């Protein structure tokens, strides 16, 4: 039975390896069902709303509410 892992969305600039591994079937070959989930656009907040002391980041939001198990920081 395949293992399942859900991660937050990555983009090429910080997760090219993940996207290539997904598209070329490398996770499946390792018995891993890797699922990539994205934050709904209406929940996305821009860093422009933040300040150095109170920054806005969208990383980890899905993990914090139990919808992803891993994300990139």
């Amino acid at each position, binding site marked *: 039975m395949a293992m399942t892992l859900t991660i937050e969305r990555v983009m090429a600039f*910080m997760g090219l390896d993940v996207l290539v591994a997904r598209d070329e079937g490398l996770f499946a070959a390792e018995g891993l069902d890797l699922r990539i989930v994205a934050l709904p656009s209406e929940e996305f907040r821009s860093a422009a709303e933040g300040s150095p002391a109170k920054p806005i980041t969208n990383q980890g939001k899905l993990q914090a509410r139990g919808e992803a198990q891993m994300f990139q920081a």
Partner: protein
Amino acid sequence: MAASSVGARQVGRRATIVCGALVVAPESPVFTPQELAHQRVALDYGNGTAYAGLQMLEGAMPREAVTTCAAATSPAERFAGLMRGEFAATVLQEPWITVAEKAGCRLVATTFFHGTWVATREVSPAAYAALLRAITKAVHRINADKRRYVSYFLRDWAGHPEVDALTPDDFNLGRIQVKEPGPIPEHEARWAWDWMASWGLIDGTFDIAAQIDRRLERDAHELAAAGRET
């Protein structure tokens, strides 16, 4: 990163190393990072590109001369703001560095940063090891033919005319770096914490156990290595 409410901690370095470039507009009188002293540099606070920006600036001027303003998370919006003259400089990542160069912008500094994976307690060493093995194979494929894979940078921003106009040959492959994922060296984690604290970006003292799940990190990397040997 601060401790997570769901017990998430860092569990290793990721494979893709990000290039961040400090960019000025084509008509800017600025040619060196030093010339950005007391000039507004737009940063997406809370993201790696913003920290990279601070590091590029502080290496060129006293900290009190570093002047920043909040910028959008989207590099497309930061690039557009730069071209409209809303600030003196910003930090971009690919493919927007290449877009900026093609538009005549100048890179006055570049740097690289290496982020981490964060995982909850639910992640098993076996699942994380499988992820690491797959990623390691991807790293080898990318390094064998980087040009083949730059299309991923275009795909992320399809529909943006500036990106759609790029071809794979436009990219500087030296800015695309991947390496096999590995554990986080403690001295690097400690330095990063202390550096962020020095800027007032986080509070408290560094606690390795709160920051890194060494058990999961070790077990998964050992399993991944064993799997590669068989």
